[in-house]
């Protein structure tokens, strides 16, 4: 018998819909890296989110896996002279030079806000010399709300420290083991792509006590204004980020995965959920969204949504099932 009215049909359909929604398996996006427990694997990258205050006006920060705050030093720093940014094809160069409020101000004014926001914080630490890294680690030890420390041995935009420690396995190991002794926090060491052999450095960091690794920091580059015959950046060279560096980021994560067992946080050019999936497949346990936050305030949330959609569409229930699940032909 034909249905007497379209209405009934519609009701039946919507009842059916409700039922299937109920039976849909819940997706498990949770990720743990050492003591850092995250509701999903999507973090925001250091220097690309400030201290969260500005973006908190667009969405609740606790929807993110974690926030990595701006590279922090013992004393406040003003950074490099402008111009500090040059747009390049599918990317941008920056030369901030670690401008930040310093560790005291971070603890005094930024951490209370972030604790209240209910999102785990990762503090990106930077020193000119080894002792400064150690002192920072000590100051941050025992502070609540901090899920991990990210040791930045890969900043291309400062004259001292930074990349000096990140370009040789011995120097990297020295910093990591000294920090290891100074804190109980989970340690993530951030790797530079600007090295000949990233695998050896990765292994040295893990052997020295790093609980996890993150990659990549920016790629050293340069932009020139042909008309003016001048470099665009005052500092002449800077760090490249954005979609242009995604192939480099994926390569580094894939190579590092071959030689270490600890979790890797993948980053470089992530804009969509699928970009994040690519990093997970290459071997990352979690990812970080950097430059994309500049394009759209809710960029990182879109990555979370995109990841969810990928999982739902492809029958992936646990996000960890994607980690390293790359099929090599």
């Amino acid at each position, binding site marked *: 018998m034909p249905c007497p009215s379209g209405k009934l049909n519609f009701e039946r359909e919507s009842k059916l819909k409700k039922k299937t929604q109920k039976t849909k398996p819940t997706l498990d996006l949770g990720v743990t890296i050492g003591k850092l427990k995250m509701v999903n694997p999507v973090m925001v990258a250091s220097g*690309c989110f*400030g201290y969260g205050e500005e973006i908190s006006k667009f969405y609740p920060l606790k929807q993110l896996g974690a926030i990595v705050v701006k590279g922090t030093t013992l004393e406040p720093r*003003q950074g490099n002279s*402008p111009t*500090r940014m040059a747009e390049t094809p599918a990317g941008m160069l920056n030369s901030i030079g670690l*401008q930040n409020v310093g560790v005291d101000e971070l603890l005094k004014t930024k951490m209370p806000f972030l604790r209240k926001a209910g999102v785990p914080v990762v503090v990106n630490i930077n020193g000119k010399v080894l002792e400064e890294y150690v002192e920072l680690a000590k100051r941050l030890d025992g502070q609540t709300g901090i899920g991990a420390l990210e040791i930045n041995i890969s900043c291309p935009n400062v004259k001292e420290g930074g990349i000096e420690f990140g370009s040789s396995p011995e120097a990297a190991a020295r910093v990591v083991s000294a920090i290891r002794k100074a804190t109980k926090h989970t340690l993530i060491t951030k790797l530079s792509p600007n090295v000949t052999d990233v695998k050896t450095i990765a292994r040295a960091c893990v052997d020295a006590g790093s609980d996890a690794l993150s990659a990549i920091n920016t790629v050293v580059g340069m932009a020139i204004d042909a008309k003016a015959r001048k470099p665009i950046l005052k500092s002449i060279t800077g760090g490249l980020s*954005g979609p242009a560096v995604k192939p480099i980021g994926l390569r580094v994560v894939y190579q590092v995965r071959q030689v270490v067992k600890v979790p890797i946080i993948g980053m470089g050019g992530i804009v969509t959920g699928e970009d994040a999936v690519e990093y997970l497949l290459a071997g990352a346990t979690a990812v970080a969204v950097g430059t994309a*936050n500049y394009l759209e*305030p809710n960029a990182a949330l879109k990555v979370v949504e995109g990841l969810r959609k990928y999982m739902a569409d492809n029958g992936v229930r646990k996000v960890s099932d994607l980690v390293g699940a790359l099929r090599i032909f």
Partner: protein
Amino acid sequence: MAPSVQSYEALVLENHPVGNYHRLLFQDNGALSKALPGQFINIRVFEGVVPLLRRPFSIARLLPGPKGKHRVEVLYASLRQGTQLLTDKRPGNTIGVLGPLGHPFPHMDKKHPALIVSGGIGVAPMVFLSEYLKKKGVPQEVFLGARTADDLVDLEVFKRLKVPIHITTDDGSKGRHGFVTQELEAYLEAGKAKPGTVIYACGPRPMFRAVSQVGDEFKIPTYLSWEEHMACGLGICLTCVCPVKQESGQTKMVRSCYEGPVFEASTIDWERI
């Protein structure tokens, strides 16, 4: 950044050349209702990743629109990739708008008669400022500088406001032959500035330096609508900084998208630019 900053898709109503520049009119969703002169927006001209970043533009005018929501005018120069793509937008297309951003010009009250100085497309924020000051009954003199007559846009808006206008062009095709700062200097030398007078300026870097020197010479506070390359416009990247001298004597790098884009000229540390 005011708490009311929004990111939204806006409908393009008009987009066409005016002289050597372009005029874009789009429909606001209400986010910019309370925007003030000096504030700006960051426009995503393209959904893809080349060009990657938004482009910052001053709010040139807020025009009454349907249901109390304004139509917003942007005046812009088509230069390279991003602004060229913007010229392709047709009525009915959309653009991504982020705003209102930054802080407005300071004062804007009757105690502070205004000398408005613009060079080239630097006129954009000044149209809004001039209309606003007129409404508030603040005395003003407008100094418009351009390379050539076709660079003078929205001139009829100033004329309709019946404010005193001084025009200079580099090639002498309209107004006085010379630089706008010379005209400003001549005005000040004639002792015409009333007590409390301030200068508001927007234009290319060399003009900023010249205006700052004039302001300094005549002891008139000078406010510049600063332009620096910016990645986010939101205050989260620290690319857009302007070196500002503090009372302590120290120079601080201050975000031009957030604490700016307006800075007092005498506080800028020109050595670090």
